[in-house]
């Protein structure tokens, strides 16, 4: 499965990019994906963010569908 991963605001600043694709050999949950992201980008350990899967906030148990659009969202600042 191929995941699109989007980074926003201070998260994009931390990882140095706003978009990439990941090839995942087997199904995984949002929590497992988050662990892999923290491993690849240790800078994320110090930053608050939420994970959205296909435009919905996801809790850790959510299975990631194939071709999902993943977004790492820092704290909101609208208004």
């Amino acid at each position, binding site marked *: 499965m191929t995941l699109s991963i989007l980074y926003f605001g201070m998260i994009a600043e931390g990882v140095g990019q706003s978009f990439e694709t990941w090839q995942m050999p087997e199904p995984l949950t949002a929590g497992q994906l988050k662990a892999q992201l923290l491993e690849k980008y240790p800078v994320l350990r110090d930053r608050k963010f939420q994970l959205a899967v296909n435009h919905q906030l996801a809790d850790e148990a959510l299975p990631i569908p194939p071709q999902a659009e993943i977004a790492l969202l820092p704290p909101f*600042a609208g*208004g």
Partner: protein
Amino acid sequence: MSSKTPKKVFVEGPISPAFISDSIAKHQSKTNIGAHAIFLGQIRADQKEEGVVTGIDYSAYPEMAEGVFHQIREAAFEKFELSCMHIYHSLGLVPVGEISLFVFVSSPHRRPTFEALEYIVEEIKAKVPIFGKELLGDSGAFAWKENS
């Protein structure tokens, strides 16, 4: 969820007072309306460690944000007796003193407008994926804004 298509919320740069008065004027033909309430978010020149805020550069996850705005609209129409509701939010740079958020609700009576106005503003602050980079002084320093 209704089948209505999401309304356009994002505008490029600040929201002008003229845009606001145009919106008000457009409601004068709706003669079942007795009360309007409006909220405006304006950029404050807060003093931060690295300097004074001179503006906020807003970005968003637009595909998700439009969906969340749509949910907030639907929920507000469900909860409150509203005739009209309009929400506008800036993207890009909004200098200090300028307006970045415009929420406009109308009803036959005043009570629903007070309640809906507060509900909608709080929901936007808490749930919409909008990000703000506060520009500080003129050294190029910045800080990321976080709603409380």
